[in-house]
């Protein structure tokens, strides 16, 4: 019983990281109809910022997460302003090529700065273990879950109740109508990048503290988060969270039942199944058009 409960929490914790990354994909897709494949490398940058804060500056998890969020938000802003904005109005392919180019640029910059080898957060960085009855859980997993819940709620509040958040929702819903209302589209797109990248930075710290930090670390969770956002319903914030958690859970349960080798397979089998049977994902009944 205890083993399955641990697997459940493990799955939800990894799913929470997927969800945080998927939120960034969803925000950017909402306003730009673009899968920002450089997003997972922004998460990698966040993991390195967190590692620097933890290892060199001896900062705790929260200040490290805040620093990673800040640096990654700035990085997201630069990527949007200088990478994508000159190509607005072009078809999807040039933007996709730029996304891949930025992804490689970030990976090789990390390699140049930190080397190709993996780095590890200090032992016990996210706390020890928590015991609930007979179940022993690593504190890092619970932290990931709590952060996911808090950040998703915070993001919903920002998008629903702030002027800038409403502008992002308006641009995601209908760009023409947004211009008609005097909303400056580019500013809303920048904000979507900033918010998404800040979340990626935080998820980088959480993921990095659970596993290893390396220049190519973003690839696997990035692909899983992409699958999660499609499964949840691309463009939908609750969908991204639901997709992430469901994917994490499915992986953990498959791993426990059939061995760890099946973990990755489950994610992509689910992705293919959703694309074939329900292309709009869990939250969108129709073929997803993307909304925030």
């Amino acid at each position: 019983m205890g083993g399955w409960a641990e697997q459940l929490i493990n799955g939800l914790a990894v799913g929470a990281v997927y969800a945080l990354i998927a939120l960034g994909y969803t925000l950017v897709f909402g306003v730009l109809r673009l899968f920002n494949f450089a997003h997972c490398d922004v998460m990698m940058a966040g993991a390195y910022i967190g590692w620097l804060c933890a290892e060199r500056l001896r900062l705790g998890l929260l200040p490290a997460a805040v620093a990673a969020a800040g640096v990654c938000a700035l990085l997201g802003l630069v990527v949007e302003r200088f990478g994508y904005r000159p190509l607005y109005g072009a078809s999807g392919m040039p933007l996709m090529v730029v996304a891949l180019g930025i992804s490689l640029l970030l990976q090789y910059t990390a390699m140049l700065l930190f080397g190709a080898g993996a780095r590890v957060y200090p032992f016990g960085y996210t706390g020890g273990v928590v015991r609930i009855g007979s179940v022993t859980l690593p504190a890092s997993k619970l932290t990931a879950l709590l952060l996911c819940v808090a950040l998703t709620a915070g993001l919903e509040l920002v998008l629903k109740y702030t002027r800038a958040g409403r502008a992002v929702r308006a641009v995601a819903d209908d760009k023409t109508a947004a211009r008609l209302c005097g909303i400056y589209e580019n500013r809303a797109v920048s904000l979507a990048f900033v918010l998404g990248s800040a979340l990626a930075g935080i998820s980088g710290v959480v993921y990095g503290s659970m596993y290893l930090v390396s220049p190519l670390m973003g690839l696997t969770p990035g692909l899983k988060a992409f699958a999660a956002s499609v499964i949840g319903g691309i463009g939908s914030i609750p969908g991204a969270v639901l997709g992430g958690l469901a994917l994490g859970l499915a992986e953990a349960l498959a791993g426990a039942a059939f061995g760890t080798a099946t973990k990755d397979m489950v994610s992509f089998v689910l992705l293919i199944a959703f694309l074939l049977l329900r292309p709009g994902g869990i939250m969108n009944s129709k073929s997803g058009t993307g909304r925030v």
Partner: protein
Amino acid sequence: MHLLSCEGITKRYGGVTAVDGVSLSVEEYETLGIIGSNGAGKTTLFNILTGFDRPDSGTVTLRLNERELQVQGFGAFTFAHMGVGRTFQNLRLFEEMTVYENIRTAILSMKRTEIAAEELLKLLGLTEQAEMPVNKLPYGTRKKAELARALVCTCGVKKGCRLLFLDEPAAGLTTAEAYELALLLLRLKKQYGLTMVLIEHNMAFLEDLCSTLCAMDEGKIIAAGKPQEVFSAAVVRSAIFGE
């Protein structure tokens, strides 16, 4: 005094000339109607006059704070902040938001607004539907919601030019709804001192509302003047009414 004028507006899409050397002017507090069969160039002209499209040649002049500004090439975003509001033939509402959120989003995007969402909801009889998502509302109510949102820019911008463009406002409405809308627009015009430009196929609706009409055919203005004069012009009867 002209509030809006355009001179020699031409717009081509490939080999098709959608608008061909159109010149017109709109006086302050006037209601100008534009008629024409489908493909006459009415919506293209509207798009140019509201910043959604750029003309290939010609000028658009808007009077704002006693100054005349050449605004061709300005984006719709800038027009909105100058007090130009617009509705679309095919409704462009934020479908995932409620009626209130649609209006509030427009209010929040303006730097200084002199209008409150509650005031607009009451004025347009939308108070009961305020918290409903717009995609769940009947067509007539959705049209009112879009009009309410357009009024935010038209009436809410401080020292704005209070110019409202309506693209087929009565389309899809019953006769009673169209009559009710005409009365509402007259009331709004009086209350806020609006200048209106509208495209419409419902001639009775236009007759009730407009002081001046322009008839378009193949991208050109073929007649302009008082509604009865335009309706009875031989060129209009032939090109638009097929007589």
